[in-house]
């Protein structure tokens, strides 16, 4: 049958899949819609004259655009350039991947290379080789992760509570932004307070327009900055209202106040601005990363970012995004590796985008995991969000990669959220910025998202933001307010973040503070991966932590439902079972622990009820029934076959305690059967009764229609197998040699 449009039903079905909401495009180099190797990418070249770079990738000095000019003056290491550029592309690619070549040697050679050269070399790497290279090339040995903490109404107490949750989960950088720019100072302040409750040292930022972001940093309301955007073509760089020189001075401005800072770039941005100059995404990104290094930024956020959906729309787009992260590492920069924008409507596809990076490891696996619900994410949905947290934790547990996060239950989180919200409320009150009721605090503490707190933005938040700027409030004022209101721990920790500016340790490449306030950076914690047995490995304690997820059920928990129905039937042994006493009978063979240690089947019926239905079905057909317990095997085929060999009709019905059932006949091989209901969770009382009737009809030599299970696409393994293992262990413990026993059943009323 076709659909009205003439399509097959299968084609029509595919159109309903979430993947079909993604719009993909063919490569179009003219628009920059090409991941690798555009026909318009330049041939790599370099010319050095008197120690100066006078040609880059086919462009002579007189024709340098701003990016070329800045790279020539500050980026490309002229002393290494001729050596690096002379290396064959494949040989260079192998240097990058090989665990025998130290990271520092690769960084040295990349320092003398041009963007076109690096882009061409990276185009040679397979996904696996990219991952292998990342494991070696990232700067910091210990991976970390950044969270988005925002909400659609800029509620400061909810920001503080969610910041506390994020830190408790393991995030070490928290990024916020605001739908209303005037709210930014208030939200930054709330984030700072909330971030220092569960543990010290998480870095915080507020992503807004460059100048405002800098101002918040200067006041100490943020502790790092990331939204310092650079682009791969001159036109888009200028459209972004900057030049490489202004960006370099901006970088120095942050340094001047002891603030950590990284640049940001990412493919797709130039395409979206309609000025990719026909170049490939990776080539333009190589220019961005080269500029980032040249301007003196310690690191970069890249790998698609806001333009990831454009990158994702072309062939090899995800491989390109991963190559961007590797680019940052090759330049010896901190990699804050994207995954911060949802790039597909398909859960499978967005997971596939992120997984290779998770397995390879990065300085920051996400430059913004959405720690809040997607609807509250003022950046737009991240590729992974609060909704996906348990999936993420389980994937981390599955693979044992360092995903940095840990599972936290309400008993852990609620007190931390309350403390953060109360600290924030106290500061806002002390500084006469805003007042909140106890009720509003409680709503923020328990909220999943802002819809649980309030419907609308209030003008008050914007006025409080204005006041912070007008009154020139700084982190010192926050410390004082915290101390005055008795939040001594938070006061000390916020002050410590201020104190750290005096040291500037976190200005070094890939620097973060761990939860004990030790700085982990390229200097104290350099990545030393050189193959198996080297580099970062989760500690034993960390492996145990990763194994703890919400979905874990202990053996005892899995079996807890058995005890309340224990004794639902009494099955008494009456000695060895007789063979074939009468021809018109069906023998019901039960497993060793059936009604002994196993009382509840996987469908939730008691074994008493399952057995009662089976016997009733046999009786309805006018056939006699007899129960025997098979004790020498837990295998259902063996149980049924053994019972069939005792049956006068040669037909038996076998049952395990977990509810699986079959009809067997003595003349069949052991592992064969007449009917099998193997999916125990789907067998209800009516079906057990029908199994009894069919067994009786087989006993009479008829050929009844087999019992069918209801249709279901559910994979039962993930849900039931742990319970099956627990129940089977009980069956196994009751196995003993010897002949089947006659059993007398009584149902207590």
């Amino acid at each position, binding site marked *: 049958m076709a659909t009205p449009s003439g399509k097959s039903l299968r084609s029509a079905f595919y159109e309903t899949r979430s993947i079909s909401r993604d719009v993909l495009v063919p490569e179009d180099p003219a628009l920059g819609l090409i991941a690798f190797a555009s026909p318009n990418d330049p041939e790599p070249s370099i010319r050095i004259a008197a120690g100066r770079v006078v040609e880059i990738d086919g462009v002579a000095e007189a024709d340098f655009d701003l990016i070329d*000019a800045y790279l020539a003056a500050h980026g490309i290491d002229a002393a290494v350039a001729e050596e690096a550029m002379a290396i064959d592309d494949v040989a260079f690619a192998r240097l990058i991947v090989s665990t025998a070549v130290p990271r520092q040697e690769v960084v040295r050679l990349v320092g003398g290379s041009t963007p076109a050269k690096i882009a061409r070399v990276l185009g040679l790497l397979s996904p696996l080789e990219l991952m292998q290279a990342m494991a070696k090339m990232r700067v910091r040995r210990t991976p970390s992760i950044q969270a988005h903490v925002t909400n659609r109404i800029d509620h400061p107490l909810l920001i503080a509570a969610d910041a506390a949750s994020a830190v408790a989960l393991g995030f070490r950088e928290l990024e916020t932004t605001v739908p209303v720019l005037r709210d930014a100072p208030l939200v930054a302040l709330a984030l700072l307070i909330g971030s220092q409750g569960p543990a010290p040292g998480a870095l915080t930022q507020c992503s807004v327009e460059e100048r405002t972001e800098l101002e918040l940093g200067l006041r100490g309301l943020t502790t790092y900055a990331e939204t310092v955007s650079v682009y791969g073509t001159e036109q888009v760089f200028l459209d972004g209202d900057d030049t490489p020189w202004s960006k370099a001075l901006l970088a120095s401005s942050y340094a001047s106040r002891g603030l950590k800072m990284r640049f940001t770039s990412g493919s797709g941005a130039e395409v979206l601005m309609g000025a990719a100059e026909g170049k490939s995404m990776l080539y333009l990104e190589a220019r961005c990363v080269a500029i980032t290094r040249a301007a003196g930024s310690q690191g970069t956020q890249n790998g698609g970012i806001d333009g990831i959906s454009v990158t994702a729309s072309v062939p090899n787009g995800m491989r390109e995004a991963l190559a961007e992260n590797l680019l940052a590492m090759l330049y010896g920069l901190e990699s804050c590796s994207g995954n911060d924008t949802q790039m597909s409507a398909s859960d499978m596809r967005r997971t596939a985008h992120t997984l290779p990076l998770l397995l390879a490891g990065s300085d920051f696996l996400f430059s913004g995991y959405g720690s809040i619900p997607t609807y509250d994410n003022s950046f737009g949905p991240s590729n992974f969000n609060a909704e996906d947290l348990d999936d993420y934790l389980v994937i981390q547990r599955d693979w044992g990669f360092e995903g940095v996060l840990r599972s936290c239950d309400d008993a852990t989180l609620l007190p931390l959220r309350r403390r953060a919200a109360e600290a924030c409320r106290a500061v806002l009150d002390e500084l006469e910025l805003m007042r909140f009721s106890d009720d509003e605090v409680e709503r923020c503490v328990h909220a999943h998202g802002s819809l649980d707190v309030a419907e609308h933005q209030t003008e008050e938040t914007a006025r409080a933001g204005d006041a912070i700027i007008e009154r020139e409030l700084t982190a010192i004022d926050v410390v004082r307010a915290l101390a005055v209101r008795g939040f001594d721990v938070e006061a000390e920790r916020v002050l410590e973040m201020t104190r750290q500016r005096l040291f500037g340790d976190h200005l070094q490449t890939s620097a973060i503070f761990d939860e004990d306030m030790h700085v982990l950076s390229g200097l104290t914690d350099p990545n030393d991966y050189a193959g198996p047995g080297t580099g970062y490995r989760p500690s034993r304690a960390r492996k145990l932590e990763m194994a703890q997820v919400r979905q874990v059920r202990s053996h005892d928990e899995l079996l807890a439902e058995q005890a309340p129905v224990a004794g639902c039937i009494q099955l008494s042994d009456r000695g060895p079972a007789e063979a074939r006493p009468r021809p018109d009978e069906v023998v019901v063979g039960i497993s060793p622990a059936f009604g002994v240690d196993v009382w509840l089947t996987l469908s939730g019926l008691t074994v008493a009820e399952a057995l009662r239905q089976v016997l009733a079905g046999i009786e309805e057909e006018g056939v006699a029934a007899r129960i025997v317990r098979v004790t020498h095997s837990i295998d259902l085929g063996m149980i049924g076959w053994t019972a069939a060999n005792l049956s006068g009709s040669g037909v038996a019905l076998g049952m395990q305690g977990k509810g699986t059932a079959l009809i067997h006949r003595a003349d069949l091989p052991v592992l064969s059967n007449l009917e099998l209901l193997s999916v125990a969770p789907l067998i209800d009382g009516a079906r057990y009764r029908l199994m009894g009737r069919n067994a009786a009809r087989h006993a009479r030599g008829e050929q009844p229609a087999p019992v069918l299970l209801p249709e279901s696409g559910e994979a039962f393994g993930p849900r039931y197998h742990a319970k099956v293992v627990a129940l089977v262990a009980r069956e196994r413990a009751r196995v003993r040699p010897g002949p089947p026993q006659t059993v007398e059943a009584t149902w207590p009323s």
Partner: protein
Amino acid sequence: MAELTYPLGEGDRSRIAAQSGRKASQLTVADVRAGAVSAVDARVDPSTLHLQATFAEQAGNPQLAENLRRGAELALFADDDVLRFYDALRPGRSSEQELLAIAAELAAGGADRCAALVLEAREHYARRGLFG
């Protein structure tokens, strides 16, 4: 006295001072509560940034070192001046004369590296027509 080593914050904190001269070890919550701490007590000293630049250089990143040295120069300027310098260097914001004046102002404040950066920008802004 032993040489200061990275990380500075995990060494003797009495050896690192803010721009005001207040030692990091003497920046306490009690001081803040008593109103005895001003914004300049939270401002990193240029000498510290120079030290960090040396660490960066030793770690093989001369560009980061240069950035930290420019930062050391800007550390002595007021917030508003820093914001003004950045704005002036954005495309189309300044005339050639204005950029020259910024460079002179930076040089006068001892910010030679920053001044050189501005002068270099001026050269390329002229070539690419970016004066405002």
